[in-house]
């Protein structure tokens, strides 16, 4: 049986449709989840998609973090359920303290949309096991507030614990500390990143198909669990 991967729609989520499609194209069963319900509908993994939830008016992710479903997401993450936060989803994970640090306005002070080269710094997470360590990939980046910040201590710890999952290559698009594009929690089941793997699953509509491995990583992990 193929695993079920849920995608949460918050008011203002935009890339939820894309994430559901990417899940389907990767061979899992996509399940649409609603922010206002606390039910996870028995999914095996969860994606918090990109967008401008609540308009990102206060701070990105600050309001969504209090959605009823987030209580269940936090609880599931604690149980080791794979959780992937993409862009706005990453911001929500930081606001919910599932991941350390925060995302602030790009140093260009403009929204930036571009095909971004990244290096996969670790494949020791639920969402990157299908990559090789050091692999260079191209993933769509698009955000206004993707500048990752944290205090020095936290940054050092992330590096020491091999929890910097992705780094920007070529040109840091937003001023992120230490070129960080994505990080994970201690256990490696919760991953957040600014670029959008769900836009890189079909050569017709994206610059690469490098995004597929995110989803196949999680699917392999779930298959292994199911034994």
């Amino acid at each position, binding site marked *: 049986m193929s695993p079920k991967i849920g995608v949460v729609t918050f*008011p*203002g989520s*935009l*890339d939820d*449709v*894309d994430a559901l*499609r990417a899940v389907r194209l990767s061979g899992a069963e996509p399940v649409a989840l609603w922010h*206002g319900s606390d039910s996870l509908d028995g999914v095996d993994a969860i994606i918090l998609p*990109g*967008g*401008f939830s*609540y*308009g*990102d*008016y206060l701070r990105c992710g600050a309001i969504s973090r209090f959605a009823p479903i987030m209580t269940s997401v936090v609880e599931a993450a604690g149980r080791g359920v794979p959780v992937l936060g993409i862009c706005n989803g990453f911001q929500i994970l930081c606001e919910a303290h599932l991941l350390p640090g925060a995302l602030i306005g790009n140093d*260009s002070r*403009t*929204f*930036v*949309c*571009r095909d971004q080269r990244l290096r996969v710094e670790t494949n020791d997470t639920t969402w990157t096991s299908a990559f090789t360590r050091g692999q260079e990939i191209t993933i*769509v980046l*698009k955000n*206004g507030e993707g500048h990752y910040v944290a205090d020095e201590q936290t940054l050092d710890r992330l590096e020491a614990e091999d929890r910097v999952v992705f780094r920007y290559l070529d040109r840091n698009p937003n001023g992120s500390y230490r070129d960080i594009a994505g990080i994970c929690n201690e256990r490696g089941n919760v991953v957040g990143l600014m670029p*959008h793997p*769900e*836009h890189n699953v*079909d050569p*017709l*509509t*994206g610059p690469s198909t490098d995004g597929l491995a995110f989803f196949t990583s999680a699917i392999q992990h779930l298959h292994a669990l199911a034994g």
Partner: protein
Amino acid sequence: MADTVQHAAETPDQEQPWAELGLRGEEYHRIREILGRRPTSAELAMYSVMWSEHCSYKSSKVHLRRFGELSQETPVGKLLAGIGENAGVIDIGQGYAVTFKIESHNHPSYVEPYQGAATGVGGIVRDILAMGARPVGVMDPLRFGPLDAPDTARVLPGVVAGVGGYGNCLGLPNLGGEVVFDRSYAGNPLVNALCVGVLRHEDLHLAKATGAGNKVILYGAATGGDGIGGASILASESFDATKPSKRPSVQVGDPFMEKLLIECTLELFAARVVTGIQDFGAAGISCATSELAAAGDGGMHVDLDLVPLRDPTLAPEEILMSESQERMMAVVEPGDVDRFLEICRKWDVLATVVGEVTGDGRLVIDWHGETVVDVDPRTVAHEGPVYERPYARPGWQDEVQSRGTGGLRRPTGGDELRDEVLRLVASPNLCDKSWVTDQYDRYVRGNSVLAQPEDAGMIRIDEDTRLGVALATDCNGKFALLDPYLGAQLALAEAYRNVAVSGARPVAVSDCLNFGSPEDPAVMWQFTEAIRGLVDGCRALGTPVTGGNVSFYNQTGTTAILPTPVVGVLGVIDDVTSRTPMGFAVPGDAVVLLGETRDELDGSAWASVIHDHLGGRPPSLDLDHEQRLAELLVGAARTGLLRSAHDLSDGGLAQALAEACLRHDLGVDVVLREGVDPFVQLFSESTGRVLVSLPEDRVDELERTAAAHQVPTTRLGRVGERGGAYVVSGSFSIPLDELRARWQATIPEALGV
């Protein structure tokens, strides 16, 4: 106390500020005649906005009618809705229909660039939504003053951030647009916005209030004092004078609200609880109620006290005129109201029953238990004044046309040609626009097959059948100045060709006619010529005009902008995977030019960039050739003949080669024709030309097919290596790194970022 209908009847001689509201004496008298009494101030507010140029098209109506003479059939199917609806709807087969339209938000974008542009996007998106469609993409044709003018540094970043801020937040991919600089736009930028939406045939909705007893529901944002300018004159006279009299004339957009409105409205459609629907654009409730009622079969009764207000001090005439954004009005059967409100609650969208459809043919609006409006809605919405403004070909037209480029010094020799190629590539109108387009999300929704910097935007509509549509907008205002009739046709032909190069079949047209003051006979002549050109052009190409927008009074002081009839063309492609992109793709591929090059440099980018010259006559146009060329390109896409196809326009072959090279960093090696001035071959802007590349072993096939379509071909050379050079054999060579550096530097340098 409000100025009630009864009070108006009793005080026929009360002075009214009709002039301040922009009405003319005879218009005010006509209103009195219609009503048989003086209007109440609420009625005066309604008539004055609905009879404004912007809402009534009073100067353009007689000319726009000509679009109605065109066949209402496209090459792929019928129009399911045409001019007169919020947006035209085209049957594209497989049960799908698409709707698209361009609108302008020029003046607000000058006053407050960010909010002006943002609310411009918001407005056109609601028009598309109101047809029953899911909006799936936007485009933004923009015009600014000179790139180095101080005010451009204020207007351009604001407009771009506004277009992006709103569109990105709605999750609509930006599929393309234009960024054009010319001094005539210095005090009057043009911000046009196009939206395209998709629907199933059975989801088509129209703006009409039918069925007496049906409920009228206002939903979306609360109503504030936005953009009501003139109405406060009325309010301060007839209402209490202690409240703040200065209402904002600037509207602030709330794209998050609009995103909720979109999802909520689509769920309402799916639940089949909407019988009629209208978006709120200019003129707010005045417009929505009078248009819905006028298009229906009865009348409407509205209780203004029920309208949720953001500012409780608003007077009835202000509520009627408010242009608060992100609002919609629906007509709903009584049995469906609960379900309607429940769906709105799910999306956190405020919804209120404010009235109902009646059977008496009147639009009646109450306030505090008294009637402040009692009119025949048709007289407000449809029977506004119609002017036959005088128009005359200006005396200077001959002079401008006689001042051609013949006397300008042309470059000779490789070094001069090379230098001018680079100067063109780096000029504001031809340089890289990524500073702008990088601020737009082109990937969201995962169906963008082509977006900037391709010639056309293309989106997939059905993942299984791979049906899709392509869109392009164009206008060369310099050509339109030299000859507005031909200029409008050239805009049409260019957009048509841009769609065709992508492999889609061009089927329908929307336009946004940006002009100076209609009270200037010269401008009015330009306008009528442009329409005549479009009608003749569309007839020849078999593409109906499905809708559009007119924007007048675009001028700085008394100097009008270049006539700017922006034309959007929609095309249909059966299988989006067969699309043809614009950039060279494989080293060694053959490079071929389709079409014929003549010595046509009047109005060209070369004349403007190198000599700051504008005069003469625009390039000639052969619509029959354009049609055959399009057929050739659409057929070639089906058979996978071409690896790239790129339309030639501003900057001619020189520029097209540069763009095709830079797309994937591949060089080119070109051999120009013997016996024809290399300058003309490189810089002429003759129309009907396309630069293609294809595998060497299929050149014969291309030549045969082209001959069958009577399209001339010229073998130019080969695609070069990655990171190579742009080479014109025996003349000059430009390393791609140098070319790219010049092309990319212009806008960031000018804006200091």
